[in-house]
């Protein structure tokens, strides 16, 4: 807010200390309240879009952060070890731990399980866990009993205290019986209580948002493990939960030192110290920032459209008041005072629009999150995010400041520019003469800029900076413009520069990809701006020819002639409006094309993800399905069992902080029957050879191309064959370093890092059990539908690979739809803009309309002329945006930025709807001003200009 205050000082000075300028500014501002409202409406969208983007980030941040409260509470670190025997070691080592950063520990035993209701119909929770802990100790843990969510006594034998998520899934209440399955046995338990999803009661260390917890009597897990009827099952985990000094979030700040202290105490013991809370909070921060950045970047188009609208409005205001401004200058008002009066009026608009925009932005953020809630929560494996609308005042403040600064800088610069008029010409309302050749000094400055552009290009190539590579040559071309315009016709120079810039902005993407450069969404933003800017310049140079062409076609229509005459004569204004439309349509069409191109990939993705299989099944690791036996099922042609777990990637090229990632061990059966397609098989002659090499060598791994990426879109860091990374088991703490042997296509099945079963056994120990399998079955749909019921006790889940791909694609398409809805706000700017411009145009041309009506122009023809005018600008803007977006998307498909098989597809229906919708909205926005123009009484208009 200090920025707002400082920027406001000169305007406040004018308003407080300069009574004449104050009167000019304020009276002009309130002179036409309806138009002032339109100006504010046009300007507030920038603030609204920025605030909305920040609020989206806040909501994601808060929603993920909420998981820290619900699933961890006072738990800051999780010390875990394989097997029940490790419990005593852990407890003895940590007994008497007095560390200034740690305020408590809690012993816990857990094992994965599945649970089901005992009533008919049977309801099941395949992913559940059995937990044992002393409830009295749990309540004391962390110093805030409420934050633990624990209440009552520790459950006795045969009783269970369950979490609210599980109660909801199984539809059970206290007093009901449930079955829990693990290690080949089942337990029937009477539900004693249902605990809220909070802290220890909601404790869950996986990615799932549901905490399907079953707290059982101490010794229960040991009992069923001792009676186990399956040998290959993940053993229970001995866990010590650690709480740091401080609240739920503040405690996580001590994780680094606490982990160090715990590590010292546990030296030599095979344990893992998981900084789960810090990871969740980091993820919250990262996701929030990432989404904010994505929305802000794409929202830039709408914001820029808003800026162009503001400039346009100010030019129209200045045009309308030209003679009075000229008179003021003539009677002695200094240029700076004129700027002051104009800018002070603009300041009033900027303040009001920033405040109103902030509120609209909050509403926008809320609407976006309501629409996104289903999208982000919808994941078959329950790993989605449950969105809860939230915002920080700091974000609201930031949105307000950004919106205000954009508006005030635009207003300030426009005011300075407008004040440079010729007094006599202004008073007599004479058109400014065509600009002369650029001054020699400007030519030299341009040459210097061109030289800097060359340097920028060199930096782009040497430093692998895509933005520098794109903008460098653009600066060179534009910089040479003034010097060329001194010696050649300006139209030819501008045409040439515009065309060259367009060609370069399209060609740069494949060039950058060929140079192995990384890029993100910002690149598309800058590319779009450069392309649209150049196209608008190019069109502006040839507007006359375009208008004459249309005029020839409709030469008998006076409405068409008149409607075209104004936009053709006022090139600057027309260019601003064109740019406004083109920017918005460009990004909307680009996103639509991408949505279509990805959406059309279902078949290809399914083939790539399937290899020779068609179903993926999963089961509870403590009670896995016997996949070898399943392979003998008559419906099953082939089965490839996999062991899936979580690892911490602690070291990798470009990695600054350890990241949790999926990891899957496989054996030769996976490769033999046809594993998922590889994007790059490295030095191996075939995909199968690469898979076999990885099975044979425990030091090799296969990763997907977006390995360790977090922002969506193309990966920000390029992972290459031969790179090395280190993975740490999330339970035992064992390390292993792998070399990347090959890169897979999109990992729709969430396998994560793929390595051989020997490496998995080495890393996960006894937990390296086959809990997932790729199957090739004769009737995939029927098999998948029956699997869960057939293997209920094993927590069996199955999905066809086509179904997985379809779900992923549907989610992606929904995300694109959400993006398009958000970007469509830009259309609001464009459509509102054209409405505002037309309202002002009617006022500006009242007398001319009066003359035309006096001469015999019918009211309908006047209305038609205004409609033609807005239609012409809208059609040009839509055409520029659409064509550029299609060319841009096509150029991207030439590269392998999104995989080598992305085909160029034009979504004719979506683009058709967009184009027609935009056009119709533009016409609707013009309807009211056109109608009011048609109602102008000639006698009144001729008598009074206003």
């Amino acid at each position, binding site marked *: 807010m200090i920025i707002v205050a400082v920027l406001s000082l000169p305007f406040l000075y004018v308003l407080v200390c300069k009574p004449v300028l104050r009167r000019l500014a304020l009276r002009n501002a309130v002179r036409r309240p309806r138009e002032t409202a339109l100006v504010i409406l046009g300007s507030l969208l920038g603030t609204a879009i920025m605030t909305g983007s920040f609020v989206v980030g806040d909501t994601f941040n808060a929603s993920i952060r909420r998981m820290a409260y619900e699933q961890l509470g006072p738990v800051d670190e999780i010390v875990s070890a394989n097997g029940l025997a490790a419990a005593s070691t852990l407890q003895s080592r940590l007994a008497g731990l007095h560390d200034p950063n740690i305020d408590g520990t809690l012993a816990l035993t857990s094992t994965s399980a599945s649970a089901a209701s005992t009533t008919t119909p049977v309801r099941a929770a395949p992913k559940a866990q059995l937990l044992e802990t002393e409830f009295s100790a749990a309540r004391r843990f962390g110093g805030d009993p409420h934050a633990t969510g624990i209440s009552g006594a520790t459950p006795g034998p045969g009783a269970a205290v369950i979490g609210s998520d599980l109660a909801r899934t199984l539809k059970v209440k206290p007093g009901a019986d449930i079955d829990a399955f693990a290690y080949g046995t089942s337990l029937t338990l009477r539900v004693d209580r249902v605990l809220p999803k909070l802290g220890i009661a909601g404790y869950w260390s996986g990615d799932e948002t549901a905490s399907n917890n079953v707290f059982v009597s101490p010794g229960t897990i040991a009992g069923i493990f001792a009676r186990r009827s399956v040998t290959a099952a993940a053993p229970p985990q001995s866990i010590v939960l650690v709480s740091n000094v401080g609240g739920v979030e503040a405690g996580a700040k001590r994780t680094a030192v606490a982990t160090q202290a715990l590590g010292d105490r546990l030296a030599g013991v095979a344990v893992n110290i998981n900084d789960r809370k810090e990871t969740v909070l980091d993820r919250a921060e990262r996701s929030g920032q990432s989404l904010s950045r994505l929305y802000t970047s794409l929202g830039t188009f709408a914001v820029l459209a808003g800026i162009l609208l503001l400039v346009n409005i100010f030019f129209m205001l200045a045009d309308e008041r030209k003679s009075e401004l000229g008179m003021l200058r003539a009677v002695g008002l200094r240029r700076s005072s004129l700027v002051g009066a104009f800018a002070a009026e603009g300041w009033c608009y900027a303040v009001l629009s920033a405040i109103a925009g902030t509120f609209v932005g909050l509403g926008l953020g809320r609407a976006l999150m309501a629409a996104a809630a289903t999208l982000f929560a919808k994941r078959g494996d329950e790993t989605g995010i449950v969105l809860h609308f939230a915002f920080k005042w700091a974000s609201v403040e930031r949105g307000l400041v950004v919106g205000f600064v954009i508006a005030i800088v635009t207003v300030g610069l426009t005011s300075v520019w407008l004040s440079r008029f010729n007094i006599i010409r202004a008073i007599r309302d004479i*058109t400014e003469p065509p600009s002369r050749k650029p001054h020699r000094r400007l030519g030299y400055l341009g040459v210097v800029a061109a030289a800097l552009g060359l340097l920028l290009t060199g930096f782009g190539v040497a430093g692998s900076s895509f933005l520098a590579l794109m903008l460098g040559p653009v600066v060179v071309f534009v910089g040479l413009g003034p010097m060329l315009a001194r010696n050649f016709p300006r139209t030819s120079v501008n045409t040439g520069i515009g065309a060259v810039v367009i060609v370069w902005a399209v060609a740069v993407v494949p060039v950058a990809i060929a140079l192995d450069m990384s890029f993100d969404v910002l690149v598309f933003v800058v590319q779009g701006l450069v392309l649209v800017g150049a196209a608008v310049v190019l069109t502006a140079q040839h507007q006359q020819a375009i208008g004459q062409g249309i005029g020839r076609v409709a030469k008998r229509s*006076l409405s068409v002639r008149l409607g075209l005459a104004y936009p053709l004569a006022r090139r600057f204004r027309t260019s601003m409006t064109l740019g406004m439309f083109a920017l918005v349509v460009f990004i909307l069409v680009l996103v639509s094309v991408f949505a279509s191109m990805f959406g059309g990939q279902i078949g290809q993705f399914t083939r790539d993800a399937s290899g020779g299989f068609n179903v993926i099944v999963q089961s509870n690791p403590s009670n896995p399905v016997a996949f070898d036996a399943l392979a003998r099922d008559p419906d099953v042609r082939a089965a490839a069992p996999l062991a899936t777990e979580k690892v911490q990637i602690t070291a990798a090229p470009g990695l600054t902080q350890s990241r949790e990632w999926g990891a899957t061990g496989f054996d030769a059966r996976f490769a033999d029957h046809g594993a998922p397609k590889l994007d790059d098989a490295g030095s191996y002659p075939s995909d199968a050879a690469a898979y076999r090499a990885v099975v044979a060598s425990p030091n090799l791994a296969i990763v997907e191309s977006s390995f360790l990426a977090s922002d969506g879109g193309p990966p920000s860091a390029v992972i290459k064959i031969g790179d090395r990374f280190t993975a740490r088991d999330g339970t035992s703490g064992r390390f292993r370093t792998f070399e990347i042997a090959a890169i897979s296509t999109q990992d729709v099945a969430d396998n994560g890092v793929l390595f051989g079963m020997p490496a998995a056994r080495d890393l996960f120990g006894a937990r390296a059990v086959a809990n997932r399998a790729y199957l090739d079955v004769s009737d995939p749909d029927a098999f998948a539908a029956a699997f869960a019921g057939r293997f209920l006790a094993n927590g069996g889940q199955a999905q066809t690979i086509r179904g997985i791909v379809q779900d992923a694609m549907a989610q992606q398409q929904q995300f694109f739809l959400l993006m398009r809805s958000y970007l469509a706000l830009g259309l609001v700017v464009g459509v509102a803009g054209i409405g505002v411009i037309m309202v002002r145009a009617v006022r500006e041309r009242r007398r001319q309309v009066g003359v035309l009506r006096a001469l015999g*122009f019918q009211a309908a023809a006047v209305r038609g002329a205004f409609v033609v005018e807005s239609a012409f600008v809208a059609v040009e803007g839509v055409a520029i945006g659409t064509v550029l977006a299609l060319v841009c998307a096509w150029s991207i498909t030439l590269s392998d930025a999104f995989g080598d098989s992305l085909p160029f597809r034009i979504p004719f229906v979506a683009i058709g709807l967009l184009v027609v919708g935009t056009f119709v909205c533009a016409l609707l926005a013009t309807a009211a001003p056109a109608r009011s123009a048609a109602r102008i*009484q000639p006698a009144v208009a001729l008598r009074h200009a206003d």
Partner: protein
Amino acid sequence: MTDQTDALLVADCVRKTYRTGAEEVAALRDVELVVHEGEFVSIMGPSGSGKTTLLNCCSGLDDIDGGRVLLDGVDLHALSDARRTANRAACMGFIFQAYNLIPVFNAVENAELPLLLAGVDANEARRRASETLDRVGLGARLKHRPAELSGGEQQRVTVARALAGRPRLVWADEPTGALDSETAEQVMQLLRELNADGLTLIVVTHDDVVGSSANRAVKMRDGRIVSDGLVAGAVSSAIPAAPTSAH
């Protein structure tokens, strides 16, 4: 009532009242005026006397509160807005003090507007507009936009626009009000020549010099016609009008 035989324009008891809030101003009070083909009539009077209102009401640009206006026997205010507009396009031309040219059209485009409105073929309209501009001395300035022309030249374009459609009646509202005396005289000379060729002209002015160019002078005060007669020395080029009695 005056002799309306073969009259081109007849204003019969025309009344017009402007309302500003609770205040009512009678701009025209039962005005009667008859203009015959080929007349050059000046309507004069002090500011606020109702000259321009009379022009607006008699040309159909503005509505009236009472009476009627007949143009060639057609009651203008009984027509719909569209028919009245078409009538203007077909029968009338206008010359305004502030020129009121369309700034985004060049001279010939401005001049051809009435022709196009009358449905004349675009090429023919262009040819006739060029001829008319040539006649008013602007043959070399056809492609110039209003902003590129002097005040006198702009008014000549206005005259050309008023004439291009070969109207039966041209209304001029202070046609020389924005011009210097030399240019004003040139414009008036042009109007006299056009009248001599048979054009009916009604000029609203408060300038005695301009008024004396006409054959007949109508004087107004407080919304009434206070005198109507031949200008001294003028030779009527049309059927002479009997003096209209003022109410």
